[in-house]
């Protein structure tokens, strides 16, 4: 839980000292935000992104510490280095935010996502879907005579790849959880 070694508001190790800013390159960052689990806290985070015009590519949230009353929000966002630094600083300003972690900078990190995918088909296509699912280590969690629901866990691009393969085989619906991520090591 104390994975963020950068103390909120500290200067020496502040995030804005870490990398050159003000470049035009769009970067993709995974940011973990530890928040007090109170009503409205998600609205504060989302409102910050919409109000200041930042991107959200994916967002997950769930309570991670019941006794400490803390939730973890994992946000995947894109922006120039300057925008990314602003996002982190602005998140840090929210009174109910305890910690902000840029996993992309502090990494390496492990990113996982879960998806469930419904594929409808018969004959060869159905067999082929099952064979590919096996290769991707996707599990069949529901089946009818002409459909499967697969469950697949992995990095987002692995899920993208699997979904792309399923499309010509009868993919009709997909639900994804968004990214959950942790730093590697201790």
């Amino acid at each position: 839980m104390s994975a963020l070694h950068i103390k909120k508001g500290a200067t020496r190790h502040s995030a804005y000292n870490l990398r050159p800013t003000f470049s035009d390159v769009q970067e993709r960052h995974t940011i973990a935000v530890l928040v007090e689990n109170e009503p409205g806290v998600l609205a504060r985070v989302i409102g910050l992104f919409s109000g200041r015009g930042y991107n959200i590519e994916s967002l997950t949230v769930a309570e991670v510490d019941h006794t400490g009353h803390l939730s973890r929000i994992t946000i995947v966002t894109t922006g120039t280095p300057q925008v990314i630094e602003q996002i982190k600083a602005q998140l840090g300003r929210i009174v109910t935010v305890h910690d902000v972690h840029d996993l992309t900078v502090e990494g390496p990190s492990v990113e996982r996502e879960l998806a469930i995918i419904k594929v409808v088909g018969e004959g060869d296509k159905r067999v082929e879907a099952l064979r590919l699912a096996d290769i991707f280590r996707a599990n069949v969690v529901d089946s009818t005579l002409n459909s499967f629901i697969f469950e697949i866990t992995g990095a987002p691009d692995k899920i993208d790849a699997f979904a792309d393969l399923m499309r010509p085989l009868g993919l009709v619906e997909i639900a994804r959880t968004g990214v959950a991520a942790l730093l590697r090591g201790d």
Partner: protein
Amino acid sequence: MTREMTGAKMVVQALKDQGVDTVFGYPGGAVLPIYDEIFLQNDIRHILVRHEQGAIHAAEGYARSTGKPGVALVTSGPGATNAVTGLTDALLDSIPLVVLTGQVPTFMIGSDAFQEADTVGITRPCTKHNWLVKDTDSLAETMHEAFHVATSGRPGPVLIDIPKDVQFASGEYTSPKPSTSHYQPVLKGDLEEITELVAAMETAKKPVFYTGGGVINSGPAASQLLRELVDATGIPITSTLMGLGAYPASGENWLGMLGMHGLYEANLAMHDCDLMINIGARFDDRITGRIDAFSPNSKKAHIDIDPSSINKVIRVDIPIVGDVAHVLEDILKIWKSRGRKTDAANVKQWQNQIAEWRKINCLAYANSEKSIKPQYALQRLEELTKKHDRYITTEVGQHQMWAAQYLGFEDPNRWMTSGGLGTMGYGFPASIGVQMAHPDALVINVAGEASWLMNMQEMGTAAQYRLPVKQFILNNERLGMVRQWQELLHGERYSHSWSEALPDFVKLAEAFGAKGILCSDPADLDDAIMEMINYDGPVIFDCLVEKHENCFPMIPSGKAHNEMLLGEAETQGVIDSKGSVLV
């Protein structure tokens, strides 16, 4: 210590325990239990405003002139939505406020009940933080935490939404104790960065201090330390609109305000300096002008308590996150311990260069014997009031900029103006809040007639509490700043920028039992101002001024600091199409 009491009583008790003496508010159905408790006690004065927006601006005026948090109390629904402009104003200017709103009872929330609004939802982006209190037992703690959040770190407005059943129910009251919440902003700056700044100050040839509202917010000690540092180093100092008074206008190293309508010497010093030391300012777009041409050759240091201010607009070389007073104390300590060094010869030359720029006399204007020039009116106001214990508030527009240019502020907390949000209608209620906090002081709201009309209902408040606030209205029968931009940017097509059907301000004053003074002749101006000062009661001073005067100097939109306009002759075709999309 805990005691059993109703939620409504807790609210009043918590205000007392937090040292609150004045609350600005307006009653309504959802706050009646709290108003009942206010009725039953004498420690807290309640000031009945005439519109909730007025309550918030009055609380802002109170806060800015005392350094204490301002408190306002309004009802649910329309009471809360009317507070939104004031909350946003306080958020942008970092003014500590605690605003209490009533809410429909918890069991009716979400049912579109009478006077129900999603107050915490609506005010989430315009408060520093807000709370909906759903049970009475957590009310006292939330109240105390609200004061902690409003006043610590970068100050700002907070709001507590209190459903009516929570006000009626009983619970345990807890007295305030030092906050144990995780929200504890860092006050001390990093010593390595501070040492780097001191080293840069020692060798800088053309240094300048650029200070802002953060110095005022940090408290009187910050202004004292700033004065000591500036006078010991001889480094010239300019300030934003928000920071006026932190360093005295009569001080030797004072450059005047900078920015869009700032002084020539201040803006050129910012453009040409080799070391810029930003203390408690935020590189606002009114200050920087064109970003890529902003002070191109300087090393920049930035002292700010809010990490998100740093590198938000302008990339800086020496970032220092901390409270201004704490950081200034460390700067002085380190600078002294290293032998009080400056590059005196070059700094002297820099001062000489600034003195050359000053000779341009950028605030010069063509005076008239026929009509009152607004600049002249303010010069006379300055001359006739500067020896008084004086507080100035303003509305928003040309008069605001002229007031910042022509009035001199010797101390912090004497100048209350809507900087970030630019809220017309701010100044009058703010003057009421200031006068409540300083009953014997001379409180003047420098206004334009259009801004003033936006919250003119507060005449009722001024009259009811016999507040001797002076409404000094520079009446040009125009929305002066809008008119100026239309002249410069929109081919002199003055679309809806004149004030038609204006009231007779003298009769208006008399209708409220106040004094009205009309002045249109420069020869009568001094006597009229003296009459205003000497009248013991609220005054509306209708000063009919030249109608088409423009505010200069001016950095046009999309231009750099060294491309400023000094007067009418230079204004033709200066703002290109790229600049005209900027505000």
